[in-house]
């Protein structure tokens, strides 16, 4: 294994630093999109489908329009915007051509409606109470249609067709085919294996449940639209909105100063942005649309549920010979993402075959939620491999060290490789050898067990931009198009700038979150901001330093301005962040209750720019993963197709009382790419957090729970 290079200490980067905007966050001064109030602003509300699948036969808005204070009602009859962002076939975001070519278009108002929560109409009124009252006065006649909720069932021939082409989501070429990956020959692999194991795992729809529900304030000045909206990428949101509304990019301004989390829920633009823009345009006044918590749960999107069939062939001494996955991902009725199931790439194996079907169902739409395809996929494969190791009477850590990836897909080298160190350091710090025991070995009803899981997560380089201005008073102003979703991008970018400019952090001001004031930024999704926009900041700083060297410091009204839009590559190597999690759980087998007693997260995310906020990221991600493992779920009534648990209580989101202490160890390395060697971090902590809890529970009770969440009823059922 390669040893990480010894890191050169830096002046600013690498030191635990409170956020540059921390004071605003604790004094209530931080302005979130919902805090924006404009003169003459109206309030909008959205009417949503009460059916999982139905034709709209008739909409009568006359009573709603007659209500004093109501200005406008939009329905599919008077508004037919095609919503293109991530919602069209193939899930390849930002590709305008797909929007034109796909046969499966999503309108902001659809007929038929295809899930409980599909927008049917929107109202603009003088205040939110009148708008809510108006919704109740809209008369809609529905013709309910059969519906299907399960992704595997939806592919059966007798299932209702949600789209004329069928329920297998169309590719970018409008063809109905699963995503297939192959290397070697799995049949040959299974034939030469000493043991072959097969199993089925399922995961559920888990909602992002970010604290700030989606909200949008739209304002038109002439033909220019300004949206105050929480988005994880102002540049992408602007382009998507402009494309969907048929405007040039420069006629759309996106402002997002502070935002209350997103975890992928606020990537690009959302239908509510378009609805708000259309309401504001047609009434000729600014409009604010606020989604309720329930609407956000069912009307935006969460993690796609999956069904995963694995077949694994191993030799007598525990070496992987063949690995096969057949998976089904439930996308809801509109495709917002790939529906991929990650994890197969974690293992070194000559013969691999993965076939994943992205399937339409009449559930809430699935889309990005922190590491979109990984926690559910890793739960499947890491449970499967843990099971194989146990059946082979091997220590799971030994099995992992024997079979884990050394090159991507056994072919492409990593830019550096510290996975083995993550696993070994973690096992040592956790005292794995001492704690691990035969599954279900504890006598008595309270049983303890330990689990381990590991991960490698893409950390690519890519294009982003930054501008830095130096004024004669010696202050630097950094212009970056980031929004601070909560990961601390403003602080990270400022620290990188201070380091690269060789100045104190206090000399750097930052301008962010406004497309009229900032250059393009890649967007706070895919854990990319530090890598990509951070790289642009370093280049702009280098340019500025060169200007200072050539021209001297600016005087009087002079200013020096530097900009950079680099598009670096890692030269044929694959950049990945690595990690290993270890957990000890206690299961009360009489109550079915699981407590996490000890949780250790070891990560190599390259150089850590700000240890304080980086720790927060890992702890938060791991805690979300524990919630997904143990109790989070959006349950549906099979009879009516209605969601039953849309909210914090119902979906059982983690609370103070649920959250264990998370111990974090960073192994820092510098692969020579990325800003000062930094790699991705935001999603890294959740990727294997679900799997590790499942493995810990197995070790405690000796029964494998194969369907998420591992709730009390399932544990009691397994113990009965």
């Amino acid at each position, binding site marked *: 294994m390669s040893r990480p290079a010894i890191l050169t200490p830096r002046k600013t980067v690498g030191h635990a630093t*409170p*956020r540059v905007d*921390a*004071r*605003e*966050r*604790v*004094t*209530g*001064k*931080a302005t*979130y999109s919902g*805090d924006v*109030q404009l*003169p003459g602003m109206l309030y909008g509300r959205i009417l949503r489908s009460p059916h999982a699948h139905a034709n709209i036969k008739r909409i009568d808005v006359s009573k709603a329009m007659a209500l*004093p*204070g109501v200005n406008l009602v939009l329905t599919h009859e008077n508004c037919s915007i095609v919503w293109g962002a991530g919602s069209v076939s193939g899930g390849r975001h930002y590709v305008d051509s797909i929007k034109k070519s796909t046969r499966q278009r999503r309108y902001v108002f659809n007929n038929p409606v295809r899930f409980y929560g599909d927008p049917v109409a929107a109202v603009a009124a*003088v*205040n939110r*109470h*009148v708008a*809510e*009252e108006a919704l109740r006065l809209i008369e809609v006649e529905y013709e309910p249609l059969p519906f299907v909720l399960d992704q595997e069932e939806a592919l059966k021939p007798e299932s209702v067709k949600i789209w004329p082409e069928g329920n297998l989501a169309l590719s970018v070429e409008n063809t109905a085919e699963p995503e297939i990956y192959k290397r070697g020959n799995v049949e040959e692999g299974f034939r030469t294996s000493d043991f072959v194991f097969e199993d089925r795992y399922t995961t559920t729809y888990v909602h*992002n*449940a*970010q*604290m*700030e*529900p989606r909200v949008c304030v739209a304002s038109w000045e002439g033909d220019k639209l300004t949206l105050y909206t929480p988005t994880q990428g102002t540049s992408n949101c602007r382009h998507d909105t402009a494309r969907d509304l048929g405007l040039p990019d420069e006629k759309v301004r996106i402002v997002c100063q*502070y*935002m*209350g*989390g997103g*975890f992928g829920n606020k990537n690009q633009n959302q239908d509510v942005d378009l609805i708000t823009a259309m309401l504001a345009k047609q009434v000729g006044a600014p409009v604010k649309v*606020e989604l309720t*918590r329930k609407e956000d749960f069912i009307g935006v999107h969460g993690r796609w549920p999956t069904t995963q069939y694995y077949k694994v062939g191993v030799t007598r001494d525990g070496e992987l010979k063949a690995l096969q996955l057949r998976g089904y991902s439930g996308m809801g009725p509109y495709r917002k993402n790939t529906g991929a199931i990650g994890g197969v790439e974690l293992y070194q194996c000559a013969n691999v075959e993965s076939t994943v079907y992205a399937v339409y169902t009449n559930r809430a739409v699935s889309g990005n939620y922190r590491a979109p395809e990984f926690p559910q996929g890793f739960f499947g494969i890491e449970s499967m491999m843990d099971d194989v190791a146990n059946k082979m009477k091997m220590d799971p850590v030994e099995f992992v060290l024997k079979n884990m990836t050394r090159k991507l897909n056994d072919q492409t080298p990593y830019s550096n490789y510290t996975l083995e160190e993550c696993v070994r350091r973690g096992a040592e710090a956790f005292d794995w050898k001492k704690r691990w025991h035969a599954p279900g070995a504890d006598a008595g009803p309270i049983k303890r067990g330990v689990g381990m899981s590991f991960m490698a997560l893409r950390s690519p380089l890519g294009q982003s931009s930054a501008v830095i201005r130096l004024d004669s008073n010696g202050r630097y102003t950094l212009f970056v198009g980031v929004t*601070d*979703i*909560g*990961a*601390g991008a403003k602080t990270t970018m400022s620290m990188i700038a201070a380091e690269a400019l060789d100045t104190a952090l206090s000399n750097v001001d930052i301008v962010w979150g406004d497309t009229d004031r900032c250059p393009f930024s890649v967007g706070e999704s895919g854990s990319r901001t530090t890598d990509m926009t951070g790289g642009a900041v370093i280049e702009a700083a280098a340019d500025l330093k060169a200007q200072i060297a050539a021209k001297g410091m600016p005087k009087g009204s002079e200013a020096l301005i530097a900009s950079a839009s680099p598009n670096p590559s890692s030269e044929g190597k694959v950049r990945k962040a690595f990690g290993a999690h270890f957990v000890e759980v206690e299961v009360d087998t009489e109550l079915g209750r699981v407590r996490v007693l000890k949780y250790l997260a070891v990560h190599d995310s390259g150089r850590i720019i700000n240890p*304080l*906020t980086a*720790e*927060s*990221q890992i*702890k*938060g*991600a791991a*805690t*979300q993963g524990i919630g997904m493992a143990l109790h989070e779920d959006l349950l549906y009534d099979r009879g009516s197709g209605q969601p039953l648990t849309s*909210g*914090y*209580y119902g979906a059982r989101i*983690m*609370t*103070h*009382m649920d*959250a264990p*202490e998370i111990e974090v160890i960073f192994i820092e390395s510098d692969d020579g790419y990325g800003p000062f060697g930094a790699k991705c971090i935001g999603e890294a902590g959740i990727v294997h957090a679900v799997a590790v809890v499942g493995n810990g529970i197995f070790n405690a009770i000796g029964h494998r729970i194969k369907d998420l969440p591992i709730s009390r009823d399932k544990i009691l059922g397994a113990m009965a």
Partner: protein
Amino acid sequence: MGFRKDIMSKRKGDISRRKFLEGTGAVLAVTTVAPSLKPHLSAAGAAEVETTPAGVPTTSIRLVVNGAEHSAVVEDRWTLVEFLRDHLRLTGTKIGCDRGECGACTVLLDGKPVYSCSNLAVWADGRTVQTVEGLAHGDQLDPLQQAFIDHDGPQCGFCTSGQLMCAKGLLAHNPHPTLEEVKAGMTGNICRCSNYNHYTEAVLAASSQQTAAADRGAGRNVAANAQGSGSRRVTPVSTRSTGGAR
């Protein structure tokens, strides 16, 4: 969260929770805000035009918010958080769920943490409200605010005001909570960024700092207090309250 009977009896007879949720509406009218409210609103920099339809029940209330007295005519259906955010422009208090699940809207009502989404503005008549904007004294942050900064409590920050106000109420009631007591006291305040470890660390840190400051103020030996012999600061808690947030 439940509502105590003495609060329920303060309601006007015709406002049931059901009716409040259903809302009503008839003819548009403009409600003039009470004179004493006007200076505050103009100070907030916004020309307020109220749009209360005729026939919508309204009530005149007087209350103290962050030490300043206000009187206002409120629609009976307005929640306390709606009044604070939209009409007093105190937008530091956030709405996460608007249904008593998440705690983002927690404020202190007569010193006790409550969900302001689950209280009507009219119920605050004659009472004292403290929001996140009232925590700092000028530039001097409350020890809790400083601890939240130092321990990186807020990630996205949307639940932070609620966490702060809940912690403020907790420490007023129990200046020396254990970790378990902090978790139990604040479990009604969800943080989806799940920075729970840092929030509880921050509250414990502020708790010890608060004690040290109180002891310095009282001329006591801080070192002695650290060994557990110091006095406990007692903050009176009003008996008129709607109960803690969950």
